[in-house]
């Protein structure tokens, strides 16, 4: 093995992201990882994913995170359960935990995970693929220290994930009709977490909007923060419900964020079209940069970026891409560096609390009409 250790991964939750993103990423990193155990609320799905990956299927998520044959755990359960499983993985002293975004339903709950990670010493990383994406990382290398932003636009107009999944994988879905109470409970979890922040008199559309910020805008918040630096404030935000106000498709969120040096515009929307328009442009007096992300669920395409600067009396334009890289693959490579080489986590739970505070600030500004 040349001295390299193969880490045994336990996967908690075998839904869309696991099957179409984490499993291919892990299998492409076979020198670093082996999928050792999987679990899912639906045993048939867990068994099928186990059969595909050569892993053991376990019936209970809490058993899996404590399994002595597992080194690192990835939490891909429904959002409301991320915290339970991540906390249990910390208590079980796993070598690292990768938790899907959002790590919790609001910042108060996120602080519980950050505190537990600190107390147990377990590195907890939040999976923000666009923080790890090649384009973001390359622009950060050129940009250097965060700050001095004069203007920027971060946008995510994303077609239905379901439309892309069929392109990338034969998804194993639970047999039988969906249990309606599961979806209803997920909505009530969101309403409970959102109204803790927005007040219970908040509009029902604000709960839907909170869900968009928590589920979609949260991809861009940590990317934006890595260029803007501190202080960063939400100056204005607005929910744009679609033709059917309680439907997430067509629902948009717009926000304006201020830094001491400039203004950033942040837009997210689930688009009715099968098209991904995801990326950002960012400027300071001596440098401009632009990033394009492919659809998350067709991971064969690379992200790409361009950077412009002054050189010898002219403008230098440089373009970068990297053929076989995705945010998910790079997140796993980073996690290997954290576990194996003591690298400092790029997206630790402690810092992700700040992301959730921005989720709350954006939703509160959009809900109240005030900054």
């Amino acid at each position, binding site marked *: 093995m040349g001295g390299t250790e193969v880490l045994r991964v336990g996967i908690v939750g075998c839904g869309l992201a696991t099957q179409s993103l984490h499993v291919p990423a892990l299998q492409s990193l076979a020198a670093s990882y082996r999928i050792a155990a999987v679990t899912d609320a639906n045993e048939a799905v867990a068994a099928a994913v186990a059969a595909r990956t050569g892993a053991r299927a376990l019936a209970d998520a809490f058993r899996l995170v404590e399994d002595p044959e597992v080194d690192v755990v990835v939490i891909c359960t429904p959002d409301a359960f991320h915290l339970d499983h991540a906390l249990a993985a910390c208590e079980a002293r796993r070598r690292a935990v990768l938790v899907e975004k959002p790590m919790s339903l609001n910042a108060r709950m996120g602080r519980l995970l950050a505190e537990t990670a600190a107390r147990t010493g377990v590195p907890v990383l939040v999976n923000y693929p666009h923080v790890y994406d090649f384009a973001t990382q390359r622009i950060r290398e050129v940009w250097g220290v965060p700050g001095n932003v004069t203007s920027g636009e971060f946008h995510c107009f994303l077609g239905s994930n379901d439309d892309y999944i069929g392109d990338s994988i034969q998804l194993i879905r639970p047999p039988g009709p969906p*249990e309606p109470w599961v979806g209803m*409970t997920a909505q*009530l979890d969101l309403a409970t977490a959102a109204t803790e922040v927005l007040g*219970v008199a908040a*509009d*029902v559309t604000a709960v839907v909007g909170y869900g968009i910020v928590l589920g979609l805008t949260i991809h861009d918040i940590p990317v934006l923060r890595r260029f803007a630096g501190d202080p960063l404030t939400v100056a204005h935000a607005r929910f744009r419900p679609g033709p059917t106000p309680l439907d997430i498709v067509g629902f948009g969120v717009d926000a304006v964020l201020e830094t001491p040096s400039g203004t950033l515009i942040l837009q997210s929307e689930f688009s009715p079209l099968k098209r991904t328009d995801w990326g950002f442009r960012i400027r300071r007096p001596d440098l401009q940069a632009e990033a394009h992300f492919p659809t998350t669920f067709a991971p064969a395409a690379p992200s790409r970026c361009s950077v412009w600067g002054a050189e010898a009396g002219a403008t230098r334009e440089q373009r970068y891409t990297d053929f076989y890289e995705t945010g998910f693959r790079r997140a796993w490579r980073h996690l290997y560096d954290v576990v194996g080489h003591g690298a400092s986590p790029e997206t630790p739970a402690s810092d992700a609390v700040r992301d959730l505070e921005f989720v709350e600030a954006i939703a509160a500004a959009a809900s109240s009409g005030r900054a």
Partner: protein
Amino acid sequence: MAAAVGVAFIGAGFIAYMHNLAVRAHGARLVAMASQTRRTAEHRARIFGAEPYTFDELEAMVTRPDVDVVFVMSPNALHATHATAAIAAGKHVVIEKPMALTVADAEGIVAAAHRRTVGIGYAENQVFSPIAVQARELVTAGAVGRVRRVVGFCGHGGPPARTWFWDPKWAGGGAQFDLGSHTVATALDLVGLPDVEAVERARLVEHPSGIDGRAEAMLIAAGGIEVDVTSSFVEASEAMWYEVHGDAGVLRMTLSPAPFAQQLTLTPTSGTPRDIDIPHRAEIMQVSGFVRSMGYLDQVSHFLECFATSRTPRQSGADGVRVVRILLGIYLAAGRGRSVRLDEVPTDRLPIDLWKSQRR
């Protein structure tokens, strides 16, 4: 300013979300909640922002000095034990429907609360919904003339799979006991709570799980009012509605799916239908307005105000006992295949047993 009223929940299932939003909207504070397993208790308590307890640790929870009111919304079979524990700790109780599995258990809760001088709120939310309040006022004011008949329907696709609702040992009964507690209570409330003397007839359809999946019953109330109630776990989608038929017209109240489907329509015997304004209709796009539209908000406000001023709530322990007695009468009538007087109903038998032991 006095500190916010402190609330604790026994039970952390679906209905806990509704009560939690109502408690928040009222300005009270949920401080603790209990569930059967530690995992569920911790999961929901984190989301709700409360301290978790298991059912085995109830004593510690209900004796907390910061808890003033305990909501009992555990599986039906545990209501009596859990309510009695909270009452023994000197706390007011709000008890989910149905109040207990037997008449004797329900009466025992009332007696315990009386001895300890604490209040009971019987959580029949539907009668607190603004639409039902409006409907009752219209009926009282004579909008349909002399009432002849009230029809009620509460149905959905059944409680969550693999939960206690499907196990007669925990639930006591099925659609008639669970949804039927609404159908019976609200139908009677709409027409001024006449005494019910007999169950004229009842038909229960057995679900493969052993409980009743669908139930139809006809009650005869004072003044000869027919009360025709249907309750179902086998509907394609949720629907809850009531009709009051009088000699001058029909009032139809569509309660659910709330809030958008809510509608109140008065059709005079000779004349055209007229839609009646529903109070608080303008709020339904707010979370608190949605919770209010199903009665949960005004219910909590009413209970907490009554507890604070030692008044008897509009839905109290006596109402819970009355509904349980009628429901047991329905199970007995279904089992016997004939009418049953309510004074014939055994006080110590479970609904499911009254139905199945008599059935041939």
